């Protein structure tokens, strides 16, 4: 077994057996899954219960036009006043009271009373329905025919399609939206992974420096071997944790869904949207989501994304994921090698990771123009490319650009790994010194004079 492998083995096994690793690995999926499951649970519970809304209608007309909506049942209470209702509300069996004043035609306002905060969906529905009624009545008053009114209030759906160079439609709004999701998901994964495990590399190196283990180790192992074993070991720990998170979260969500919603889960739609889509041929094109469970949606997303080569996409993801991590891990290790205390090092973590955040925050711009010059350069520069290239990929990137970007990234990785190994060796001689550009410079100069082994 080579020495790199021995270092790797220790880094991997000591971290995997660590209590905090086990706790985090189990707690992570529980947290993630509960974020997904709890809203469903709440919605399911809320959905099952019928809610009764009393209407006090001083206009004697508008109240009757409100049809039951979702779980809300509307009942017009004749000759009631708000004061009376408020006194008997607790025992009346109603969940809310809608008060339509007789001055509604001039004031354009109604009031919803309840002992709980009124659901946004109910508020939106009441507003929408009454608006239509008022519009209708106003137009009728001007002697406009009902047919004309129908035409006037027809909403227009704007479809967006994108052509490629040959004039073929390559993108519709629906696929565009899905590609957005894919780009955001992949870039977020890379960002989180690099930050999470890069910091662990930094901590590990600092720990060895402060505990002075480093001198014992470099008297047996080449710094390059040590660095490689360490970074790869922690990387694999991270990868294992990530895979476990995904698998466990998936399992928990599927399990919960199976137990809680034997029938497909249908999220409540806002009345506005439902109404708009209720008529017209366009409805079928857009209403894909509500029919399916969120898991079906993920599978659906995978299948329907035309123009995305999934093999290239996943292959590239793996490459950028791994080398992006290696690149930043090398930088973090280098910083750790020449600094002494955890606290003072933290401030250097932020400037170093700025190149990661830049493309992440510019994501909307990259997605808006995936082949523009900003997108191109960000996806070629090794420090920003892991994020920027993953954001561009779902929209199609020429192979030469993809290849060039990977080559540049790998080259930069090799350079930085060697550099930080040098800093590791000479950084040892700088015990107790504060991290500064000067000490970094000294470390590199010392490394140069001490040659390779």
């Amino acid at each position, binding site marked *: 077994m080579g020495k790199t492998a021995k*270092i790797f083995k220790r880094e991997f096994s000591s971290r995997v057996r660590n209590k905090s690793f086990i706790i985090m690995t189990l707690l992570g999926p529980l947290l993630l899954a509960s974020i997904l499951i709890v809203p469903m649970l709440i919605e399911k519970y809320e959905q099952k219960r019928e809610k009764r809304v009393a209407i006090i209608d001083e206009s004697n007309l508008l109240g009757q036009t409100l049809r039951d909506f979702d779980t809300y049942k509307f009942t017009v209470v004749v000759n009631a006043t708000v004061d009376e209702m408020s006194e008997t509300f607790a025992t009346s069996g109603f969940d809310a009271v809608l008060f339509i004043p007789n001055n509604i035609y001039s004031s354009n306002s109604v009031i919803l009373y309840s002992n709980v905060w009124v659901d946004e969906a109910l508020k939106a529905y009441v507003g929408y329905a009454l608006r239509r009624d008022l519009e209708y009545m106003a137009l009728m008053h001007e002697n406009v025919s009902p047919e004309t009114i129908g035409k006037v209030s027809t909403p227009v759906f704007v479809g967006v399609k994108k052509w490629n160079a040959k004039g073929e439609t390559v993108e519709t709004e629906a696929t565009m939206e899905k590609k957005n999701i894919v780009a955001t998901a992949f870039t977020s994964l890379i960002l989180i992974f690099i930050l999470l495990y890069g910091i662990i590399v930094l901590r590990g190196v600092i720990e060895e420096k402060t505990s002075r283990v480093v001198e014992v180790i470099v008297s047996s192992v*080449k710094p390059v071997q040590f660095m490689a074993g360490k970074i790869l070991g922690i990387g694999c720990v991270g990868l294992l944790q990530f895979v476990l998170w995904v698998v466990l979260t998936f399992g928990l969500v599927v399990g919960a869904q199976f137990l809680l919603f034997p029938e497909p889960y249908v999220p409540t739609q806002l009345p506005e949207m439902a109404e708009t889509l209720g008529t017209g041929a366009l409805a079928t094109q857009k209403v894909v989501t509500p029919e399916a469970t969120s898991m079906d949606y993920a599978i659906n997303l995978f299948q329907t994304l035309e123009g995305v080569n999934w093999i290239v996409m996943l292959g590239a993801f793996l490459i950028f994921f791994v080398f992006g991590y290696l690149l930043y891990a090398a930088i973090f290790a280098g910083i750790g090698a020449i600094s002494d205390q955890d606290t003072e090092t933290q401030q250097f973590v932020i400037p170093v990771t700025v190149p990661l955040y830049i493309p992440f925050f510019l994501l909307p711009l990259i997605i808006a123009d995936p082949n523009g010059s900003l997108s191109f350069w960000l996806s070629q520069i090794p420090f920003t490319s892991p994020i920027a290239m993953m954001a561009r990929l779902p929209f199609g990137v020429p192979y030469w650009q993809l290849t060039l970007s990977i080559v540049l990234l790998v080259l930069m990785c090799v350079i930085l790994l060697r550099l930080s190994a040098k800093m590791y060796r000479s950084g040892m001689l700088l015990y107790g010194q504060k991290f500064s550009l000067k000490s970094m410079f000294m470390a590199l100069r010392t490394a140069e004079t001490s040659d390779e082994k």
Partner: protein
Amino acid sequence: MNILAQHIVKKFAGVTALDDVTMEIPSGKIFGLLGPNGAGKTTFIRILNQIIQPTSGTITIDGNPLKISDVERMGYLPEERGLYRKMRVAEQILYFASLKGMDDAAAKQELEVWFERLEIGNWRNKRVEELSKGMQQKVQFIATVLHKPSLLILDEPFSGFDPLNAQIIKQEILRLKENGTTIILSTHNMESVEELCDNIALIYKSKNILNGNLSDIKQSYANNRYKIVFSGYYDKLLTTLTPSIKILCHEVEGNTTTVNIEVMQDIPTNEVLQFMMKSGNVLSFQPIIPSMNEIFIQVVQQQNQE
């Protein structure tokens, strides 16, 4: 393992840490590497360990140039001790041994021997952070010697030990020497140097200023000083004193007088004795051999004056 370092120079970004240092470390002996703090001892040790490379100069081991695989035959106990705090004792020692290329089964066997010798077998599954400082030092010592190195480099091996445990470690060092291990001992503890070392080198301000066999060096600094006890009168001695003899100090107790003298010229011991016999009845007569501590201070002061 015979080590010959010739004309070693090491510069760090303009600062000279070692300046033309030449020394031979003979096989199977204990070699004391002495010098004040910051003189360059640690730099020399790191060059031997190949942690850093010399700017110029050569090192040969048994006649062959130093090569990377030689580190596996060396054991290094750094002055700044280092162990993984969260790792367990046995696991940690075996890890360091495996980094030195030792076979796992052999390492486990050897570990049992050392656990028994230093009586820390009960702590094998404890984390290092749970141990006392002295206990940690023992763990570090075992980690240094487990792979049976031919060259053992010990930087202040007794620091952190109580006198009892320091004695145990001393015995183990001597045992390792008997088994043929070459040992470099870097320390400020001159008592242990006199007790253990066969040869020494004194590095001061990046240079090797004193080098050789310990007893030869001590003899050479014993220059014509004697301690004499006689029954007779000190006053009488003073009256008969010749300019070639200088009294360093004296002590009178009843009829017995003790004097330390320094003979200025090369006068044979017999003549000095004859001269003393005139003043009274000589009870004891012995040359004063300076301690390593005195030699250290004397040599360094001389260097400073130059």
